[in-house]
């Protein structure tokens, strides 16, 4: 197993499409992947989580019980799933909405102010891909280029005009992660 | 000598099991005659109900399917959608069609399903032994309404033709009776029209046939015919409730 990613947030934050995009790109790279969504009964705004397992061999359980990477898109998601992350695992927190601090000291925490960055880029809808860009930079699980190609398959054709903005978001997220790494090394 | 009357080809040469004075036999014969006259015996598929008429399977001489109680219009839908060039009909009693099968016949009509329902209304459950039907008249005594049907307890008899008339998918809806030679001639005309509506692809068609059940009514066959005339027809008026525009059939 390479990574077990758990993406947690609420409906409308693009958590499920981020998971599908990641799974699709890793498949392009010849990896074994499994994607499992979990959501509340509400059609809009409820809990919206998914797990993505990426492996170089056949995947047994597709359930992400012990994530190597947790993406927390809001405070409650961090609170709920922080404890499940494996020791030395990675927590990417959407610091625009996550107000609480990570309580564990055996995980790597990378805050990314995704909503503010997305606002600055002029499209609040790309916040999820800013986070994904950071994940790609921090894990190296698949390249931004492959993810950009996957966007064509994952997005319905009527949204293909938004691909350049989403690619810029991925790059911006990667850039923010790189800056964080430099700060970590200081 | 010239042969002027014979058994329709679409009816098998076997004795009916129906009670003396029951008009299922007349209705069977009319359906078989119409199928012969339209020349569709080899391309028709009938759907038998649950109730006395389950044995239509044995009497009609063409392909037959035995459906679950009330479900014949759904079964017929499945057949017709797979074989749109065949003629598909159901033959159902009042309990089968108008009680347990209310959802199925109404929605077949709503969809404009190109099938024909032959609906036998004799105001009582026959095979199960004379219980109240959805079409049992107010005051009518049955095994489950021993003091007569009371609207406070059991509500009112269901008027199937009147219900179907406003539905856009219903192309032909008629109520006939088989208690007199004149009525029988009218009934045959309606049945033929219903099949023609289907063959011409105009939509759903249903013919309600007011019938007798002397055994469960506790009457002689002759009394039953009279009872139908005096009690059922006033509540269930005969006539064509819905017809396609003139000239299409």
């Amino acid at each position, binding site marked *: 197993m390479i990574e077990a990613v758990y993406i947690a947030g609420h409906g409308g934050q693009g958590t499920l499409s981020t998971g599908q995009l990641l799974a699709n790109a890793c498949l392009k790279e010849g990896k074994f992947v499994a994607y499992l969504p979990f959501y509340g*009964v509400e059609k809009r705004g409820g809990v919206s989580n998914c797990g993505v397992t990426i492996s170089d061999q056949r995947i047994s359980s597709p359930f992400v019980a012990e994530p190597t990477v947790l993406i927390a898109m809001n405070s409650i998601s961090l609170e709920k799933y922080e404890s499940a992350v494996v020791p030395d695992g990675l927590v990417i927190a959407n610091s625009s909405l996550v107000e609480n601090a990570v309580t564990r000291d055996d995980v790597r925490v990378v805050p990314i102010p995704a909503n503010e960055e997305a606002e600055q880029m002029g499209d609040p809808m790309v916040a999820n891909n800013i986070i994904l860009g950071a994940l790609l930079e921090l894990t190296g699980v698949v390249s931004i280029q492959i993810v950009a190609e996957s966007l064509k398959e994952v997005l319905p054709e009527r949204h293909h005009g938004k691909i350049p903005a989403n690619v810029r978001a991925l790059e911006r997220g990667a850039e923010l992660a790189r800056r964080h790494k430099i700060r970590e090394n200081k | 000598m010239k042969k002027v009357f014979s058994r329709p080809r679409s009816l098998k040469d076997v004795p009916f099991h129906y009670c003396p004075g029951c008009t299922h036999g007349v209705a069977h014969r009319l359906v078989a005659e119409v199928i012969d006259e339209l020349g569709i015996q080899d391309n028709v598929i009938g759907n038998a109900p649950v109730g006395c008429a389950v044995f239509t399977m044995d009497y009609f001489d063409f*392909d037959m399917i035995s*459906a679950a109680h009330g479900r014949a219009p759904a079964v017929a839908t499945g057949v017709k959608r797979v074989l749109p060039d065949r003629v598909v009909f159901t033959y159902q009693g009042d309990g089968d069609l108008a009680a347990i099968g209310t959802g199925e016949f109404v929605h077949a009509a709503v969809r404009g399903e190109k099938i024909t329902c032959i609906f036998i209304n004799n105001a009582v459950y026959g095979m199960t032994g004379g219980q109240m039907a959805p079409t049992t008249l107010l005051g009518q005594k049955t095994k489950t309404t021993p003091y007569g049907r009371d609207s406070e307890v059991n509500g009112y008899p269901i008027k199937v033709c009147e219900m179907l008339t406003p539905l856009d998918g219903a192309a032909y809806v008629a109520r006939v009776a088989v208690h007199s030679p004149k009525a029988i001639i009218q009934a045959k005309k309606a049945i033929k029209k219903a099949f023609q509506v289907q063959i011409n692809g105009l939509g759903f068609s249903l013919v309600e046939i007011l019938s007798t059940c002397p055994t469960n009514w506790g009457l002689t066959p002759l009394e039953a015919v009279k009872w139908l005339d005096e009690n059922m027809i006033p509540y269930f008026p005969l006539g064509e409730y819905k017809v396609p525009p003139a000239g299409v059939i």
Partner: protein
Amino acid sequence: MSKILMKGNEAIGEGAVRAGCRYFFGYPITPQSELTHYLAKRLPEVGGLFLQAESEVASINMVYGAAAAGARVMTSSSGPGISLMQEGLSFLAGSELPSVVVNLMRGGPGLGNIAPSQSDYFQAAKGGGHGDYHMIVLAPNTVQEMLDTMGNAFDLADKYRNPVMVMADGVMGQMMEPVDLGGDVRVEIPPKSWATTGMAHHAGKNVINSCLVIPEEMEELNLKLEKKYKEISQKEQVCDEYMLEGADIVLVAFGLVSRICMSAVEKARAMGIKAGLIRPVTLWPFPAGFIGKTADKTRAYLTVEMNMGQMIEDVKLAVCGRAPVYHYGRLGGMVPDVRDVLAEIKNLHEGDAGR
């Protein structure tokens, strides 16, 4: 051909289309709605028909009619909808009509919820409708298998003139995994000279019927069905094994739970515990033959199910008292955690058999 990422619901739909199914009759219910959305779009592309019925009762009877007319036909539903279909399933079995019904199980009883469950095992494998009958029941555990199993389901249905149920828990419908769609599709649907297609299209008069009022005749039909079920039981039992070599603790699980058990077995093996897994692919006929052969080498069995313990009865019958059989279950839409399954294995390994 390269693999594409597909949802389980879509894979079932595409698998059905590739198996030559051209008719779907159904009624919306979560968590299988995406399957109906997929087929509503896909079937017209191949000249097929998707029809939304007024209820599950109507759906299964439309399936009955289409099957009687000789078509490859299916429906799908979940929980309460499958319960409503039980009368129709009994009729399909009694009239020997080939058809495929998909059940994406949800939490019950009653309205329950839309979370994954395996609590319909008894209903499917033992026959939820009235009368003596069996459906063939298939339980895939990957999205690829959800696609592939549909061809198998339609072939078995036609081969034995019997309804086939494909069962998965609800979350498998939403799960996405890579799928190889394979090459060109060639479907051979056997001729159906028994179908009610009109007498111009076959010899003599055909009747589709399960009503035989004379008990001697009804017994004759039952004996004929029994003979068929025996043949199916002898020829069609299928199961998978995983790390069974030298295993003295054997897990038995189907569907998605079998995948969780694979992870638990891997972890147990890494700890030096000789655990293995048997995964029934056919729930009926149940692979009792294979399981029975492992009984003398096995210290204990553990069935892991998302129910109170349903398949365990079949495992016990197969093992026939030669080894203890335990059950670990999560209920009401909860999914077993791999760590909890591992803890159960450890308990058994440490000889905690007196629970």
